[in-house]
């Protein structure tokens, strides 16, 4: 595996055989989330397919990856951000930093609609939200120009009580 960091974006090359193995070994996949997230934006279709399959099957991320996920959430975009939101939504007892990062994604003006909706979906699963998060999500539910995001935010807001 080859990895380096350039301009803050993690770039990694993962071989297909490993991705295929991780797709059927959720526990192992959980330890390689950095590689999997990097792989979903590969130019090779098979790499993207198997990385997506691994991320779909890997379940909740291990605790040692939570800080990394929270840190990358608002820095990434596209499919990487979508999957980071999905991973965050699987955490049962998330930390505040994760919540703040998700609210930032949901409210971001440059964020793809699918990712903002997924961030709301993740927040909806949290047992409770801070007042500031609730206000931000309610604001989205009231004012977002996207009907899908308005609905996702409203659902999240209702769930947060």
């Amino acid at each position: 595996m080859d990895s380096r960091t350039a301009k803050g974006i993690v770039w990694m090359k993962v071989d297909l055989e490993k991705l295929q193995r991780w797709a059927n070994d959720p526990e192992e996949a959980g330890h390689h989330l950095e590689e999997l997230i990097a792989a979903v934006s590969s130019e090779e279709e098979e790499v993207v397919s198997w990385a997506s399959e691994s991320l779909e099957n890997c379940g909740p991320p291990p605790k040692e990856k939570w800080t990394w996920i929270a840190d990358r959430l608002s820095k990434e975009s596209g499919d990487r951000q979508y999957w980071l939101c999905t991973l965050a939504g699987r955490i049962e007892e998330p930390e505040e930093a994760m919540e703040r990062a998700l609210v930032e994604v949901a409210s971001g003006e440059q964020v793809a609609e699918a990712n903002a909706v997924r961030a709301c979906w993740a927040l909806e699963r949290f047992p409770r939200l801070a007042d500031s998060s609730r206000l931000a999500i309610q604001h989205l539910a009231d004012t977002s120009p996207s009907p899908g995001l308005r609905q996702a935010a409203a659902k999240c807001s209702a769930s947060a009580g």
Partner: protein
Amino acid sequence: MKGIALIDRRLIHPFAAALLATWIGLALGVWGYRVTGEQSDRTRTQPIAIQPIANPTTLLPARTQQTILVASFNIQAFGQSKVENPWVLERLAAVIRQFDVVAIQEVRSKDTATLPRLLQAINQTGVQYQYLIGPRLGRTSSQEQYAYVYDSSRIIASPQATYTVLDGKPTGSTTQEVGIAGQPDLLHREPFVARFVVKTLPQPFRFTMANVHTDPDEVKSEMDVLSNVWNGVRAFERLQASEDDLLMVGDFNADPPRFGKLGQIAGIQPTISGIPTNVRGTSLYDNIMHDAAATKEYTGRAGVFSLVQYFGLSVEDALKLSDHHPIWAEYSAFEAPAPGAPQTIASDPYGSTVR
């Protein structure tokens, strides 16, 4: 349903679909995809002798002219690497040849030759399978397609009567899409629907299949939406084709106790229960469902076609084919009378019908 007239997409009137959309909260569109069993030169592979360990008859009922076998198979991330691996491709082909119609999930390839290459492998033995394939679906760049592969010597499919449930994402690109503008995206991969008829006389079994693959992260909400899809497609099929037999098949990522509102629909019957459908043997994800009152053609036989048993593989090797086993259900090749319809049980010499 009488006659063999299959619906033309022009007959799926936008008004009728929009009416249903209002009712079910989803819009039904007709993204028809015409597909044939054409094969290209690049799809040629060398025949490989596969020697299954288990005789199919130990895993499946004997195939007869009186019945058909309908299957569902999630071929995990089916794309270039599987198509180009003869060991995998030939085994997938051998599996599909066991059934009359197979609903496939997880075709993941932009290469339009992917499914034709599988078809060529299937037809290498002289059988005549064809396929229907839906649009690429999904919220990320890794999108999936549903497909149906069927034995054209036994089954007729109408490409003009296939459509994808349109889930609030109208592109506005064609007049055949009738989505509700602004309707939120409720399903990750909208079901792909197709209508089939068995080539038999005098009263062939006709049925509609809805191919499903839920998002494992959104099973609960998608199951509730699928109950609307069930009701909507059923009403649409009754209206457009007088068709009452709907089989909802695929990878639900849930066992029947977790079917939510879908499982609460009166009469709905999952044919697979109490047995794992994944290769690791831990979970029941896949099912074939129908309305027990309407689909009297179901013989009561259904099951899991174990890749491990059929090929005598280790779990690790079976996972090279897929993380799911195919599942199957058996139906009569002949149409049963619709519930409540007059049934002729005897005739008197004067020609009057005794009910």
